[in-house]
Structures are given as C-alpha cells and as structure tokens.
C-alpha cells in the first residue's frame, strides 16, 4: 500500500525530483506535498473542475490523475498566473467583472480561459459558454465569468 515511486516533474517552472506514494492523487500531491493550495478539490470525481491544472499546456483534472502521471511533464497551477502578463490580465478581468464570489471554483475557470486564449481559434459567446460548461460555479450564475472570458478572448490576436 505504501509503494513509493520516483517522480520527476516541473511545476510552475520549478523542477522536482522526489518519491511519492504510488496511489497519491495529483491534486493531493500539489496541495499537501507542495503546499500549492490554489488548486481546489470540490468533488474528486471529475465533475466540478475546481481542481483543473495545465499539464504540458492542456487543461486536466488533477483529481482524476495520480501524482506519478505528472512524471516528465510540465505542470502549471494557478499560483503561476500572477507572474505572467497574459495570465495576470485574466486575473484583472475577473476582478473588473466581479467574476468570482467565494473564489473556490475560480482557479478552474482561469485555467480553461487561459487554454482558450492560447488556442488558435476565435470563439463566439455561445462557444465560450460551451467551453466553460464543464466547470461548476455555485455562486455567480456564470454571467460575470462569461463576461470576463468574452473580454479576454475577443481581444485575442490570432497569430
């Protein structure tokens, strides 16, 4: 049960080389082992999206992965968002549009919007709503999250 496995991974630009229990969830690894508590756990069964992180640039639910599945990957969590101008802008748009109340679901939405921003596609409002529909928020009624996403994504430049 306490099988330990070697794990080499890069998280928010920092390289880690450690051993972790084989059965440790990626979400628990980030939160309890690295103290990156910005990633939240709302259901642990893949529905709510609060635990969403980026693995090699693509969003994934950290509650559905084992820590060892992060081996050899580049992981980004919400803690990295304040540093870079592009992601900082997402945070500012969330403030300006009152897109969060309790903030528990927020990291998941930030991740999804960042992924949309970095894709090479333009989105209509309906497509944005569709893209966000896999994440649950119980406080906001989504309208202000959609507004922020619209502002962020309609100004994006398609390279």
């Amino acid at each position, binding site marked *: 049960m306490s099988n330990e496995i070697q794990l080499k991974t890069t998280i928010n630009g920092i390289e880690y080389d450690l051993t972790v229990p084989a059965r440790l969830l990626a979400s628990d690894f980030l939160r309890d082992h690295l103290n990156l508590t910005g990633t939240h756990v*709302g259901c642990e*069964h893949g529905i709510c999206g609060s635990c969403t992180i980026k693995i090699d640039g693509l969003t994934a639910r950290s509650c559905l992965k084992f820590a060892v599945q992060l081996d050899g990957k580049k992981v980004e969590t919400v803690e990295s968002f304040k540093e870079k101008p592009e992601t900082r802008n997402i945070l500012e748009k*969330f*403030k*300006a549009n009152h897109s969060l*109340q*309790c903030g*528990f679901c927020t990291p998941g939405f930030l991740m999804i919007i960042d992924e949309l921003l970095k894709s090479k596609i333009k989105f209509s409002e309906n497509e944005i709503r569709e893209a966000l529909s896999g994440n649950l928020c*119980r*406080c906001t009624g989504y309208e202000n999250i959609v507004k922020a996403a619209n502002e962020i994504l309609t100004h994006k430049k398609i390279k």
Partner: protein
Amino acid sequence: MNKSKTKYVGKNVLRFEDERLLNGNGQYTADINFPGMYHVAFLRSEISHGEIISIDLEEAKKLENVYDIFLYDDLKHISPIISKSNMKKYLPTKQHILCKKRIRYLGEPIAAVVAKNRYIAEDAISLINIELKELEPIIDTINASNETKNFVHPSLKTNVILERTFSQGDIKDVNQNELISIKKIFKMGRKTPLSMEPRSYVCDINKRTNELTLYSSTQVPGIIKDAIMTYLGINGNQITVIAPDVGGGFGGKASLYMEELIVVAIANKLQTPIKWVSDRYEDLLTTSQGFEEIIEAELLLDEKGNFISLNSNVYGDIGAYSIYPWTAALEPMQVAGFLQGPYKIKNFYSNVKCITSNKPPTGPYRGVGRPAAVFVIESLVDMAARKINMNPSQLRLNNIIRKNEQPYKIGSGIVWDKVGFEECLRKALSLIDYDKIKTTKKWEGVGIATYGELTGIGSKISVAPGMPLNTGSETSRLEIDSTGSISATFGIASHGQGLETTLSQVVGDHLGVTPNSIKIKQGNTSLITHGTGTYASRSAALAGGAAIKVSKKARNHILNVASFILNVPKTEIDIEDNLITQKNSNQKLSFPELSRIVYSDMQTLPIKLRKPLIFIESYDPIFGASTTATHIATVKINPETFKIKIKNYVVAEDCGKVINPMIVDGQVQGGVAQGIGAALFEEMKYNENGQLETATLADYLIPNSLDVPEISISHLEDFLPNNIGKFKGMGEGGTIGATGAIANAVSDALKHLNIEITELPITPNKLYTLIKNKEKK
C-alpha cells in the same frame, strides 16, 4: 458627518478579497495544516434506518499509522445535541455525537478514525467490521406523518415533532358557492445547498496556553463557539472559532455539525491538531439539506378576480433531527409564513406539520421556505388567471398590496411595510415588454413570480419561530492604532458576499476615509464578544448599521480631538480622504499625526482626550426590512427531448439603498441560478430502501454555464426601510423568485396540452411522464 453625500456607498468598488482569491493565496480550511496534525475519517452508516449490533475494530486498529478510533462510548461525556424552541407542541430530538445504537439516516457517523493521513484513515475504515440490523426506512413524508408504529425517534411516539396552525378571518363566513376554487397538491423536492467547497474543519491546539482554535468552513462561527462551550465544556476564552476563506455556504454551513464537535473533542483529548475534510460524497450525504414539502393549497376568488381566501396544509419533511440551532420549525413554518405573498387575501388558514424521516436533517437553504411558498402561490395565481381568462399580470395587479395600503398584516402575522410590490411588478413587466412577449405558440411560455420577503431582521423577529437565540443584533468595534491605521471588526462571516469590501465602503463614507485604508476583520470569535455570523440576508443591514453607528461615534470623537489640536470649533473641521482639515484653511492633520498626538505625545492633549481610539457600537433594527422582487422568465421546450431552455430572464427588485451595485447584481445572478436549479434540475432522491440515487455530481445536477441565461436586473431604490443604513437584504431573493417564475413559464409553454406544473424540479423525465399520461387519457 458627510450628510447625505456618499462617496463610496452606491459605487462599484472592486473587491478587496479578489486578489488573494485569484492568485492562489486564498486560504480555505482544507488549505490549513499544522505540524504533527492527524487526520480523521468517518465510518458512516450505509443504511438509512437500523441498529448497530456489533462493531469490531481489531483489524483496523492493527494498521500501521492508525492512532485511535472513537465510537459513541468514547465520547459519551458529550451530551446529545438538542435544538431548543419555546414553540408549543414542539418535541425536540436528541442527536448523539456518534451513533449510539440507532441509525437514523444514511451517512450518519458511527466511528471516527484518527490516522497519519486521510488515505490510511480510509484504509482503516474498510477494515472495520460492523453488523447492522436494518429497520424499515421511513422515507415517504405523508406516510411518515400518519405512522402509528414506525418512528424515527421511538420515544416521541410520533413522527410529527411540531405542528402549528395560522389563521385569519373565517372561511365559514364566505359563501363558497359563488366562488371559483383553484385547488392543487404541490410538491417541492429535497435539495442540497452544494457549496463548491465541501465542509471542512481543522482544530489546532496550543499546549502552552491550553487554547484551541477551530478553523471551520462555517457561516456562523459565533454559534459554533457557543455550542462548543455548551457541549464540550470548553471555556469561551480557551476556544477560538475562525472561518477563514469559505467557499460558499447558502445555508449549508449555517448549522452545527457533529464532525465539528468531534474534531475539537479529539484534538483536545489527543492534544494534537486534527483535520477533517469532507469529500463530496460525504457532503452530499450529510450537509443539511433543504426544502422538501408537500403543500395542499386552495385559492378561492370571485369571478372578477378578487382573492377571497387561501387555505393550505404544509407537510414539511425535516429529516432525522431537528437541526441545531434553527430547529425543525425553520423551513416548513416559513412556507406558511410567506404563502400569502404580496396579496390582499382576507381569509387565511394554514396547518403546518414538521415531520421526521430517515433522511439527513434539513436546515437553512437559500430562500428558506419561500422558494416553495412562491412556487405555490404564484402557480395558483396563474392557474386562476387561466380559469377566469384574465391576463396573469392584471390578476396580480388587482390583488397586490399597494403602497398606500401599507403597513399591511398578512394572515400569518407578517407585516409588509415600505415595500414596492406594485412598482417592481410594473417595472419587470415593462423590462421584458410582457404583453409583446406573451405568446400563443406551443412549447413556448412566459411566467411571472412576485413575492415579499423579510430581511435584516432585528431582535423582535426570530429567524425560526421559538428559537432561543439572538440573531437580531450585530456589533462593530472600530480602532485606530498608534500608527493611525484603521480597522473595524464584526461578528459576521463573509463567504463570498464581499463583506470586507462593502463594510469598508460604509465605514469609509461615515468616517471620511478611503475604503482601501480600512482593514475589515470578521469571521473570528476571539476578535469580538458576540456575533452569530452571516445568514438570513442580514449582514448588510445589521453589520452595515453597526458600521454606521461606530463610524459616526469615532468621527465625532476625532473631531473633538482635532478641534483641540487645531484650536478651532468642531464645526470648522472636516474629515475626508483620510485627512482631518480645517475648512477654508491649510491646516491639516493626518491619521498618523493624530494617533501620535493621542498615544505618544503626552503634552498636547488633556488626559480625557488621550484615551485609546477604540469605539464599540451595536445595532439592532428591532423589526425587519420588507422587500420584494418580480421575476419574469420565458422558456422554450424542445418537444423531442423535453429539455427546457430559459430564454429571457428579468428581475426588478426593491433592495433599499445599494451599497455596491456590482455585488448586488452578482447576488441576484447567483441566486437566480440556484432557483433555476431548484426549478429544473436539483433533487436529492431517496428511494424506498432509503438509498440515495443522487450521490455524485453526475447525478445531482446543478446548472452550468449553458443553463443560466443573462439576467437583466433593475433596482428600485424608492422604498427605504426604517433601519439606520436604509439597507435591505438581498442575498436570497434570486432563489426565492425563480421557482415560481419558471414553473409558470413551463405551464404556459404546455398550455396546448392543458398541463400545469405542480411539482419541482420539473425535469425532462418528469415532463415526458406528464405528457404521456395526458395522452393516455
């Protein structure tokens, strides 16, 4: 005082909470860890009704890194939780901290396993051998109320633990032959509040001072602290309850939980920090649930469309225990209390029964009672309109209580005063262009709901009738320290409402300083002598009122001090933008300068002006602030899939003075989303075996971003209440109005089939059954 001038109240001040919550520095209870901390997991009942025959812990205890396992016997010094009420005909229930013998609901905690981490604690749980005897589960509400043998609490010899009748006028005096009767049985399904953050508790212990600190995802730290004193015998000065960042509550975190007491009791016993974080499954099973009523109701009206009487029987399923501290009265009594809505109806009768069942206790859930009440009365009004062939908006206008008829006491005893029922209704009708949007098309419909609500209630009105708890006042302490920094402390506990921002706007205006220079402290029982928390749409009105009083007091004192320092009369001095200035001159004092003179300079001021800059005020509005809104929804039903799509949604609401429009709109949007959930998706379904069919988020559906439309909102600020800040509560209204508006819109969309919705949620499955049954006839 800045007279009527407000610089910050009424403005979209961006929230101070947001930066930390966005950049990952928010701190929710589950994020908190201490060195040497142990983790707890619970063995929970897998049946709804039964008895424990035996428990064998041997294997579990042998597991490495399992430190202890607690059963009822190990904690039996904790007396059973009893929620008191002085209502007549109330039979309190006794809830043991862990199941003693009897199991009364699915998920009830039986054993607490303490281990190195959660993984190991759960391993240990799987090694516990437990033998249970199953009893026939009491699930159906009406059957439970008629039961003569099978009781949730056998010693009470009934499942009806509270009954009350409201009546006004006498229906016998009414000649019923000439009246039109609309009589239906309505059903509101059981909900779960489902905040995205599951409940969690961490208890830290300071061995040097022998003090305990409970970090709790609670809305009511003050109530929890008092309960810890009552049930664990820990002195108030040895326990602090802190609600750090809390990930939503909606009522689900407004009651006392057994896990909360157990975590503290175990930390105290083992003298080590203890953590419990609920997983979603546990949260769905055990967080207090909401609503669940069957309501038989009859509206009598004359053919001109004047309402004559409203009679009803309310059967409220309150689950296994009368919840602490709100009691079983909370939800079902509110249904009857608000059933009459904003209408003139001379004759009113309602019998309410609060019925125990083998389901988790119900507690407060956003709207409390009123989402069901509004669904019933607003549906009856639309049914009546169809019957007498009158425009539903006209029928409402005929019966609505007008401005000049207030104060108006409705049949349940509630007094409506200073509330714009008619004005909100008219506003909503014009916002959506009602007469144009009304349609004869099949599968498309429009629905109105208008309601009355009491918010920000003071000490003369109980949150739940008969409850011996003062929820009617709030205290604030404002301090200016030796560096000139300002902080204001409150007993409320924000969990998404942005109270750190809105209260600083209020203090800012009344003290003459910028909101961002004020530190608002809240959610911590050691900072304030008394305070209950944030629930029942009270914090803006009550804490906002205390903020105004304390700021005025502080301002007045500062003016006295400054008058002495500047050697000019008080009236010549103003405080604005953190500067104390002599009008028409250059003389100025900053707060740091003022503080230095008060605290450190022993010469300038006489002794009586050198007292510390600490000010305390309490505020009790005595009564409540009546408020209202009208919601109008349009829906379109897909005739193949029966999916109901909400197309347009408008809300016109009367919320008194708006502190922060952006935050108020956010509360309305979020509230409506929950109302949409209540109307279309959400139901905790217990089958006849007492098993829960909706124990994951894939089964218990809440609205997502495709289900909630953009909501257009209009605020009426013309009806100001009698409280000091002129604030009305608006945290729950969104949910209250949505059930009725959507039910009516769906019924309207089914007019070609003559189907009227009497049960919520109305899911595609239920719609399919309704339509098939109709076709068979």
